[in-house]
């Protein structure tokens, strides 16, 4: 949907321009103003990351000179290696790599389970609404707005009563719970927009709940599943609060370890290592963002459209 209207617009753009001939026009003051505003805004967004990258490639003596914007005189990748392998959080000095693997271990199952649950929910709500199903959905939508702090403590008590608090399955369950409202909304809206005849025809042919889901609905759900994956991977990877509360010390995700490394009060602050660590933590969602492009925006907007 996103590509087509823009392509049309570009074409009409060309049609407007063509009568002026092939000669390139001078920029009017208004156009210069537009670009000036956009470039200044772009600098506002880019400068912090420029500072991070430049600083992460400098040695500590060079950083202490205080030339924030200057390029490194003797670029070094040592801070990056340190951040990955040796940076200290309290007593342990294993760098960020354990956090990275923890984040992978948390993110992959959480994304898979939450999307499977949400797609079944959306399908059942759209085509098999049993009595009370809409009330359940209403409660779920309410859950999308509840501040996390309201349900965190009951969840701690609930999970520890079944021995899952501060474990890997525990944090996966928590991510599944808090991903469910938005994802269910996403899938329900997607299935509701499908032609109802599709479902009725399969029903007349005698297919049941699971058969229709696996043979018809699931294969059609690829576009919405992609949006859901993008939404969940970035959301869960970037999570801090649930990780620090529910994952337990040995499963702390990358964001928590990053914060521990950087905001450790003991010892000399190694800014270059800290910045390298920060870039490493941001790398996964950024890669997803740059690969997925417009899908990313669609995912964000879809989450709030009917909220």
């Amino acid at each position: 949907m996103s590509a087509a209207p823009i392509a049309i617009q570009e074409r009409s753009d060309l049609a407007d321009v063509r009568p002026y001939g092939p000669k390139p026009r001078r920029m009017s003051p208004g156009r210069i103003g537009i670009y000036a505003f956009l470039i200044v805004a772009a600098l506002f967004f880019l400068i912090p990351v420029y500072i991070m990258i430049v600083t992460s490639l400098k040695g500590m003596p060079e950083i202490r000179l205080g030339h924030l914007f200057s390029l490194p005189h003797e670029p070094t990748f040592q801070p990056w290696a340190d951040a990955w392998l040796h940076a200290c959080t309290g007593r342990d000095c294993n760098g960020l790599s354990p956090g990275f693997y923890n984040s992978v271990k948390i993110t992959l199952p959480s994304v898979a389970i939450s999307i499977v649950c949400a797609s079944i929910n959306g399908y059942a709500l759209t085509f098999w609404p049993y009595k009370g199903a809409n009330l359940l959905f209403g409660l779920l939508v309410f859950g999308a707005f509840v501040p996390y702090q309201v349900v965190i403590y009951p969840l701690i008590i609930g999970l520890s009563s079944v021995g899952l608090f501060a474990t890997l399955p525990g944090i996966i369950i928590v991510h599944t719970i808090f991903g469910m409202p938005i994802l269910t909304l996403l899938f329900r809206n997607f299935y509701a927009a499908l032609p109802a005849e599709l479902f009725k025809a399969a029903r007349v042919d005698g297919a049941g709940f699971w058969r229709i889901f696996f043979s018809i609905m699931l294969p059609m759900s690829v576009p919405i599943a992609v949006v859901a994956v993008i939404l969940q991977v970035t959301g869960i990877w970037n999570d801090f609060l649930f990780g620090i509360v529910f994952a337990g010390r040995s499963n702390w995700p990358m964001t928590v370890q990053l914060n521990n490394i950087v905001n450790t009060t003991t010892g000399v602050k190694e800014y270059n290592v800290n910045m390298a660590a920060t870039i490493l933590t941001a790398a996964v969602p950024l890669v997803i963002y740059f690969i997925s492009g417009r899908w990313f925006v669609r995912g964000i907007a879809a989450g709030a459209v009917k909220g």
Partner: protein
Amino acid sequence: MQKSWRRGFHLPAVIGTVPMILVAVGVFVIGVGFSVLWSFTSSKLFPTYDFVGLAQYRRLWADNRWLISVNNIWFFGLMSITCNMLFGYLLAVFMDQRIRQEDLFRSIFLYPFAMSLIVTGLVWQWVLDPNLGLQAAMRNWGWSSFSFAPLVSADTALYALVVAGIWQGSGVTMAILLAGLRGVDEEIWKAAKVDGIPTWRTHVSIVAPMMRGSFATAFVLQCVGVVRVYDLVIAMTGGGPGIATSMPAVYVIQLITVRQNVGQGMAAATMMLLPVLVVLAFGGLVAWRRKRQGETEA
């Protein structure tokens, strides 16, 4: 459309949605219920059922740290939502001027949103660090009296959080509003031009009201983000200097974990829930009345 034929009890549908039933009822009804219940007890580290009435709420509203948190969230919320909307709208309008390299600009404005709020907080903590960041750089360039260290002072730290919030979130507002702008019919622009209405006037009086949906979407996203602001505060200021940038979200977590005062923490959490409930009830009422009006007209 006939819907009744497929209503009824389908066991597989119920089995398939067991996770949803558990989450909707177990977490968002029973869980929230227990939080509210414990706010009326004297629970310390573990929940008890020793009811003390409204005592926790009285203590909560007598706690200076909570009062500051509440003030902060209003200030932060109003400032960051207003700035985000204005800046986002401006960016969207400028982006809509058939500019070159639109995709490049869009990527630049939006990428901070892909990163964790922890990352955003740390980045801005360094940029605003007096010995390392902007202030030091400006002084090195010869402007020796340049002073810009908002995070160090209790009066200005909140503004720094707002700036970081804008850096992270205004790109999304831009993307949503730009989609809304593109949805406005070209003919309207032409008609306004023919009538001799200045462009800014067309924006304010005609186009912006037509984009109500996009504004609402962006606004809801912002609000949810503001209520949940926790990571940003923790990474950027840790609630400091002192308690100057404490927020309700931070306050609740601190009471549960560090100060081990669950009863009062749950009272604070209930206070966080209250405005959300009011807004949702209001929204529900509006939707219900509109639906009824539609039915009577039909």
